[in-house]
């Protein structure tokens, strides 16, 4: 965020840049799955 009020142009670009978002999709899935699956051992 460029300040507390709004997203910058660069942030908006990355939010919709498909290749970067594919990378984020993989990263987020790995992150969420890894931490969520830890719960199974409680």
């Amino acid at each position, binding site marked *: *965020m460029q300040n*507390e*009020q*709004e*997203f910058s142009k660069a942030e908006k670009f*990355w*939010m*919709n840049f*498909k290749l970067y*978002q*594919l990378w*984020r*999709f993989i990263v*987020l*899935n790995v*992150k*969420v*799955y890894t*931490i*969520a*699956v*830890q*719960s*199974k051992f*409680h």
Partner: protein
Amino acid sequence: MAKILVIGAGFAGHTAALYLGNQLGRKHEITVMSNRDVFGYVPSWVWVGVGHMKPEQTIFKLKPVYDRMHVKFVHAAAKEIHPDASDQFVVAEEIGTGKEVRWSYDYLVIAPGPLLNFAGTPGLGPENGFTHSICSLPHAIKTRDAYLALCERMKKGEKVKIVVGTGHPGATCQGAAFEYIVNVHKDLLKKGLRDKADILWLSNEPELGDFGVNGVQIKRNGIVQKSSEFIKSVFNDHGIRYQVRTGVTKVEEGKIHWQNYEGEEGITEFDFSMLIPQFKGQPFKYIGKDGEDVSAKMVNPAGFVLVDGKYGLPYPELSQTPEAWPAQYNNPTYPNVFAAGIAFAPPGPISKPFTNKNNLLIAPAPPRTGMVSGVIGRVVAMNIVDLVKTGKMTHQERMTEMVAACIASMGDNLWDGNAVTIVMRPVVPDRKKYANEFGRDLFISHLEMGLSGAWMKFMLHYTFIWKFKGLFGWKLIPE
């Protein structure tokens, strides 16, 4: 042979039933009692509410799943619970016939979901009031119809006021309301009608992005970012006005009455409004063996089941006492009775409560839906498996240890959709374990907006329905 009865077939009850059926179903009697014969995937009702998903895509019949999982299904509404040791049974009314059924148990899981307390706010709700809800599938369908009718008015050039948020000073599930408001924004944008709508977020949160969990905090490039700033940016970007620290007290046709932290009273006009009601526990009767009322041993005044938490701590003390949150979710007086999901009584709020000068308590209740419900359902089921097999429980997970991931979609298009992905650990801050003022793991906690979130939301819809159908590999999918 142990008899295990699960009341309710939502995220918590159904998850518990799957694990119980899988682990004990062949040798013991597992029964699910529910007043609905379908499972509803609640997170997608947001899309139903804007007409982007057919209702039938969010539900499936329970009985075929239970037949495969060695679980009996009773289509009945539970009315009375008789928990005394020598005489334990549940009385219910069979749906369709109205016949009374009596079901005995050795272990009971209470997971019927919330009572939507529209009556707690005069004029609230789609049945006897003037606002809409996405908290049940019939409500979401009604909301969709009203929303689409509103769009028709806008197409004719009418300017309208839309209000979305919480309909009670103690309501929870701000996340669902947030997802709905951004979906409405995105849908109107696509329809070319956004300029015809003034959209307002009206909520009981202490600040934007609180979501009833004291907000989400993350560390990025060494700087701590808060969900309040993030959600403010989202709303500013979308042209959505916001008003927080507000408790709705009454609704009339086209008018929402509220009070804020300062004790000011005001009226907000609307043409269409979706407000989440207060949640309460289901109004079961708890009856002892001599016919006496044992509710005081079983539930708190709101009807939520008392479990192994420390109740009655004032907020400042509770916020520093992670061990006050329940770990195994069974009742201290009747230890073979468990509660899962929204049904268990939390020891207090997660967000800081506030009482204004008019003595109105404005305090978001702790959210216990979705992932939290599923995890508790599994913990309860695995402990019952332990008790049946070894007589000793080995599983526990407090909300102060639990991870939650939440994806709030903004439109459902895979090409230009968007979503906020929120990950927090733990759900309830643990200021003893995490040495920062937020009590959160700032490395794991995550807040991000982008197209990837929209893909994840879609993926979760299909993978979770796969899981809840108990299909191949369902146990590999986390709650």
